[in-house]
């Protein structure tokens, strides 16, 4: 008899994916400015390390919170015993206010409709358990966060059917693609229970347009038992126009005349906006009472530590602080993104124009030997092992076009980012030389390479001048 469960012995946890393999390589040889300057620079981790000082200075000004005190009185016992899955009321209130603030207060959230979970990882899985039976499917636009394969499918038995998006229109969701995905699911005899989008997008770093959002809402409106999940975990990282439009705003604008408010659910977390992934603070927001009730009970399997709830209720309850934090954080992200984009440009690399997130969606198609995923893997390995950068290959995000990579910029110092860009440029220059000599030796595909070589060679001259 098989000793363990099927779930334990399969690989639906998705950790054989290159997304995680890159992490492993990094861990074996991590970059350190002093101790290991030739190590691998971690650019595969979407963390926000830019604004810790703001949090630290708030903590310095609010010592009570640290000492488990409220108004000078110890509340340790109360917190230590608090395991109510409804969550600390003051924390939920502060959290919904923060969420509203991020959305420019164009929408408000009811604290009674929030469910606290151990990170967005748990929030997404819990929603799947509530909305889909085993074998039912959700449509997801590609490219998408590799973790979804584990979070949405592994223990739930749910399926993901991709909505193929392409660079032809900057990876936006089209009605055609949506319908095709739905048909594909039907062909596979899968009952589609809804669509899940990440807005702002991971890995694209772009916010969804109003027309995309309306398209999605129209789509689920037609089918009476379909849901729309909007993972808005990066909502606070939008640093330039067009601004962030939440699906909740769209519903409000439409006055929810479609009556679909109970089929739209938002996932949030403080891991990206506040840079606190270690604290495991996630949330599900839904107007559907049954979903809230069921998800609340399920949250027993991953509640947020009461001391963390308390700390954050005080921090997010300080409106002056949150207002300032949101603005300053976005400023710093914008600056950092600009740094990366210009660094990439110097290496002759462009990326998808983005206005959010902690990463860029980088176009390295011109560096591929061939327009294949094998070539993408080859390039990726070179970048990890030779260049010493852990970045995430598009294939791990289920991108349909080879050559795209997600590169994170907010989890390191400016110096490290500069170094990373330099390494990349050096690599590209070296590759060009190699390619050009290969070209002289009469390799094929001359035509397609010519334009590229010409572009690069003119850039080379410019670079030499800059140096």
């Amino acid at each position, binding site marked *: 008899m098989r000793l363990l*469960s099927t779930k334990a012995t399969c690989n639906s946890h998705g950790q054989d994916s290159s997304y995680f393999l890159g992490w492993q390589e990094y861990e074996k040889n991590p970059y350190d400015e002093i101790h290991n300057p030739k190590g691998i620079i971690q650019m595969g981790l979407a963390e926000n390390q830019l604004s810790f000082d703001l949090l630290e200075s708030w903590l310095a000004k609010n010592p009570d919170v640290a000492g488990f005190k409220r108004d000078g009185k110890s509340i340790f016992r109360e917190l*230590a015993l608090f395991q109510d899955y409804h969550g600390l009321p003051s924390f939920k209130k502060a959290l919904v206010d923060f969420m509203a603030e991020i959305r420019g207060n164009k929408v408000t959230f009811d604290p009674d409709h929030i469910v606290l979970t151990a990170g967005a990882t748990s929030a997404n899985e819990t929603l799947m358990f509530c909305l889909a039976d085993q074998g039912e499917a959700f449509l997801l636009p590609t490219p998408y966060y590799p973790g979804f394969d584990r979070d949405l499918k592994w223990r739930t038995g749910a399926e993901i059917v991709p909505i193929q998006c392409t660079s032809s229109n900057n990876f936006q969701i089209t009605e055609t693609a949506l319908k095709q995905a739905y048909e594909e699911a039907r062909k596979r005899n899968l009952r589609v229970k809804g669509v899940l989008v990440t807005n702002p997008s991971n890995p694209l770093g772009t916010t969804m347009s109003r027309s995309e959002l309306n398209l999605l809402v129209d789509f689920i409106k037609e089918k009476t038992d379909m849901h729309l999940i909007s993972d808005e975990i990066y909502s606070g990282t939008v640093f330039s126009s067009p601004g962030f439009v939440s699906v909740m705003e769209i519903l409000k604008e439409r006055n929810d005349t479609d009556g679909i408010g109970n089929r739209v659910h938002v996932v949030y977390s403080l891991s990206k906006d506040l840079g606190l992934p270690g604290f495991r603070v996630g949330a599900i927001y839904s107007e559907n009472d049954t979903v809230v009730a069921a998800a609340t009970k399920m949250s027993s399997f991953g509640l947020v530590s009461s001391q963390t709830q308390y700390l954050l209720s005080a921090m997010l309850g300080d409106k002056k602080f949150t207002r300032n934090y949101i603005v300053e954080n976005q400023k710093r992200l914008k600056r950092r993104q600009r740094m990366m984009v210009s660094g990439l440009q110097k290496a002759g690399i462009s990326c998808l124009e983005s206005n959010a997130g902690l990463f860029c969606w980088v176009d390295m198609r011109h560096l591929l030997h061939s327009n294949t995923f094998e070539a993408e893997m080859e390039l990726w390995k070179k970048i990890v092992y030779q260049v010493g950068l852990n970045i995430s290959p598009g294939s791990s995000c289920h991108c349909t076009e080879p050559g795209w990579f997600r590169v994170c910029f907010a989890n390191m110092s400016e110096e490290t980012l500069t170094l990373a860009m330099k390494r990349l440029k050096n690599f590209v220059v070296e590759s060009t030389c190699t390619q050009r000599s290969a070209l002289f030796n009469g390799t094929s595909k001359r035509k397609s390479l010519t334009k590229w070589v010409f572009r690069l060679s003119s850039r080379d001259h410019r670079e030499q001048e800059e140096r």
Partner: protein
Amino acid sequence: MELKAMDQTQLLSKMAIGDGHGESSPYFDGWKAYDENPFHLTDNPNGVIQMGLAENQLTSDLVEDWILNNPEASICTPEGINGFRAIANFQDYHGLAEFINAVAKFMARTRGNRITFDPDRIVMSGGATGAHEVTAFCLADPGEAFLVPIPYYPGFDRDLRWRTGVQLVPVMCNSSNNFMLTKEALEDAYEKAEKDNIRVKGLLITNPSNPLGTIMDRKTLRTVVSFINEKRIHLVCDEIYAATVFSHPGFISIAEILEEETDIECDRNLVHIVYSLSKDMGFPGFRVGIIYSYNDAVVNCARKMSSFGLVSTQTQYLLASMLNDDEFVERFLAESAKRLAQRFRVFTGGLAKVGIKCLQSNAGLFVWMDLRHLLKKPTFDSEMELWKVIIHEVKINVSPGSSFHCTEPGWFRVCYANMDDMAVQIALQRIRTFVLQNKEVVVSNKKHCWHSNLRLSLKTRRFDDIMMSPHSPLPQSPLVKATN
């Protein structure tokens, strides 16, 4: 937003609509009664006293003192803030090394340092609740089953079954031998499952037991190990109450059996321990659950699954510091056992004085109270009736044995460690009043001689003297309201 019931059936998953969460059980009705009318010494002295919550509130002061004296353990204080960003940013599911090592050390210490635990086998989870679910996900497929001795913690129905699709098959235990687990009962349960075409993947035991408060002796543990090895099924030992053992005989962990009982064959790949700091240390709010497995594949799988319920690093950091303070831990464990023993003596002593017996126990945060003699009839309906009286008239929330799947009506689990001394006295007073009222009713119904009536009231006055004597300490501390 109101929706027709039909709509929700199509709209949501079966899991969301069904009853698998187990909250329709009477276990929760008592909580609701308490929630609506909670006892408070000064604000609501006639409210319902919560004795249905197995919390350890007896040692919060020790932990609180430690935290006050160790500000560097918090990443939010001036003393500890240098660690803030690294800790807040750390989401590795291996956990903070210092935390995992401290937990391994603590687990060993609560077992008298008779065995050691390998930190690499420790996996975090969202409380023991999360640990149990993850373990079930790792060991069994939907439709497969775990054997569980009854009576058992009602939460298992949800934790092991709800989202996993795993079944629970009861192993019969009864009062004839103090609810001890026997080989025959195990074999019977296994055979019955086979007959019903249910594939058994494991046996789950809670040691010390909830709700019994007893520990398993060496003989029983050996029997269990032989049984699971023979059947090639897993053994999951929930040792969440390990450090609540307050008197002899001492606690024997399954880890000790594996180390010491080398004459019995046991494949370690079948053995897993679930643990938590919620009961031993009294901070359920911090959600510290642990899976310890001797099976590498289970450790790996559980670790990946722990992504769904990691321990907040703020908490990991604090507890790493606390549990690495050897002097504190030693003092804490000794004092905790002392206070639990004291509270146990006071409570069971008070019950004994009105003729209420409890199963002999030496662990846990509760007693398994025998009220069979107060039942109108030896039926579960009578048990429910009695329970409603206890909640609504005596105004104490206790947990009826039926919610623990006990096969004999009349047993109740009563928690005594989640309140201060004053509340215990008041609870005992109420119980006394109720029992005596009951006795008087019974006596007058039976038309006894007036002598016995007199005798009864004399007894009452003496009892009053003992309970309210000037030398018994009744601190005026405000009650901490249980917020579940």
